[in-house]
């Protein structure tokens, strides 16, 4: 039951986030709402008294944002991505026992091997920024999936933009 409520919160947060971040809308599984605004979580809280367990993946997804996005064939972090990572760093410095893997991904508009290298670069961009913000490097491992694990389906710009990402997952 508690799990279902959590699912609802994530879903509500996702819808709310869509108003400010339209790029997010095709994210699947309720884990795509990386930039949930405070107002979204507030409205969710009125539906369910309990929020995600502190320091959990759900907490990271709903209250911090678990992913950042990249331009085509790029791995530099934009201002929005840096804002999300800054929140992740605060969160990781709060939950010091948590270790994470950052998964780097690419869209399908590239060759397989180059995209593996590109995904590795993206994951490391995110990692490097977190480390610069004081998160211990040995708490973060990186893994590249290249174009093998798209989150948004469909061969279109909106889906590709969602798939060029680095996702922080708790291990």
């Amino acid at each position: 039951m508690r799990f279902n409520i959590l699912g609802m919160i994530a879903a509500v947060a996702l819808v709310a986030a869509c108003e400010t971040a339209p790029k997010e809308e095709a994210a699947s599984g309720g884990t795509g709402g990386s930039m949930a605004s405070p107002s979204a979580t507030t409205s969710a809280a009125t539906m369910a008294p309990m929020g995600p367990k502190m320091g959990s993946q759900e907490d990271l997804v709903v209250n911090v944002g678990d992913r950042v996005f990249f331009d085509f064939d790029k791995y530099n972090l934009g201002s929005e991505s840096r804002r999300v990572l800054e929140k992740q760093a605060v969160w990781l410095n709060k939950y010091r026992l948590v270790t994470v893997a950052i998964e780097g991904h690419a869209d399908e508009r590239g060759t397989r091997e180059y995209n593996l290298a590109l995904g590795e670069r993206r994951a490391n961009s995110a990692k490097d920024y977190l480390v610069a913000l004081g998160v211990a490097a040995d708490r973060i491992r990186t893994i590249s999936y290249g174009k093998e694990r798209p989150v948004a389906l469909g061969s279109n710009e909106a889906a590709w933009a969602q798939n060029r990402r680095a996702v922080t997952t708790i291990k």
Partner: protein
Amino acid sequence: MTTLVRSLLAAVLFITFALQAQAELRIDITRGTVEPLPIAVTDFVGATTVEQEYGRGIGRVIAADLERSGLFKPLDSRAFIQNNQAPGTLPRFGDWRVINAQALVQGRTQVVPDGRLKVEFRLWDVYAEQQMVGLAYFTVPDNWRRVAHIVSDAIYKRITGESGYFDTRIVYISETGPQNRRIKRLAIMDQDGDNHRFLTDGGTLVLTPRFSPTLQEITYLSYYGNQPRVYIFNIDSGRQEVLGDFPGMTFAPRFSADGNKVIMSMAKDGNSEIYTMDLRTRTVKRLTNHSAIDTSPSYSPDGKYITFNSDRGGSQQLYVMEASGAGVKRISHGKGRYATPVWSPRGDLIAFTKFTGGRFFIGVMRPDGKGERLLAEDFLVEAPTWAPNGRVLMFFRQERSKADGSGGKSRLYSIDLTGHNERQVITPLDASDPAWSPLIP
């Protein structure tokens, strides 16, 4: 008068004979378009029902091989006037000229006393009325398809002057499921799609398999234990072994032409560099040192050079360096991004994937970067691999997928170096990352 006529006749006969000797049956496969050569492939004869069954199967495999090459047009056996003739006797060439066969393949299968299968064949030039090649093979009966491919290679070689590619196998990635939960398995099959089998169960993501020139091994990328690393798979034993002990992801592996080395990329701290490993000593040598992405390395057949993919110039381009890593030179200068360079087994060309204007292409260029030719184009085509004779390429083509997860179908195709004769290679499921084996030793 009579003597004059007679000597004239002799001269005419002599000239005709000389012309025939010169205008030997031959296909020039370097030409862009070739009118397929009409060839009659008869069922191989046998004395018993079992032998006849092998004979029929062998004839059909040969005809299918030759047809797929695009260079031959096997004639419908129902038009044959003279079928099932023993290869020891001279064919009635007139009967074959009537149906416009320019070449004729006849053969015999025989189960010899020790249980082995004896397969003999003859290739005839129907107009010259001459035997072009005649050979016999012994094998275990289960191996009859291989013998058929070996015969096809002998025919191809005799008529084109180039070695064939029919007695070969393809290793590739079999794919099922939606794009975001794709199940990928290593699979292997004969070049004609027969003898298909899966080598892994799909529990672990596997990518980019490549054949060893010794053929018993495949090198590939596996995500076993969520650690993407280069592995070697032994086809006979099924044993999988991680290659080396690297601190980061290893990927993009390829054997050297002598089979003694595997060249690959290793990514550490986000930077991909090219490394080579000597399989006998297991020593590892780093070959590039650049903050750019350096990947998809491929040795030249003589082992002296390496072509690879790098974005050190600002965008993905093809480079060539010496085997030591020295003397890096950019070779691609066209519009767009270039990737996946693969050196031809003949050494004369490098095949690649190109991405420009929102479209992908399969192309070839000379190792100095000149003479670029594009052979195939689509929404996504990728991963060219060479037939061992360097005359045919295989690659995969993936369709667009829809937002509901449908579409995105992925299949293997072969195409002649001339850009003609594109054929789908039939696989039971979706397919990608093909790798052509050398001729089976």
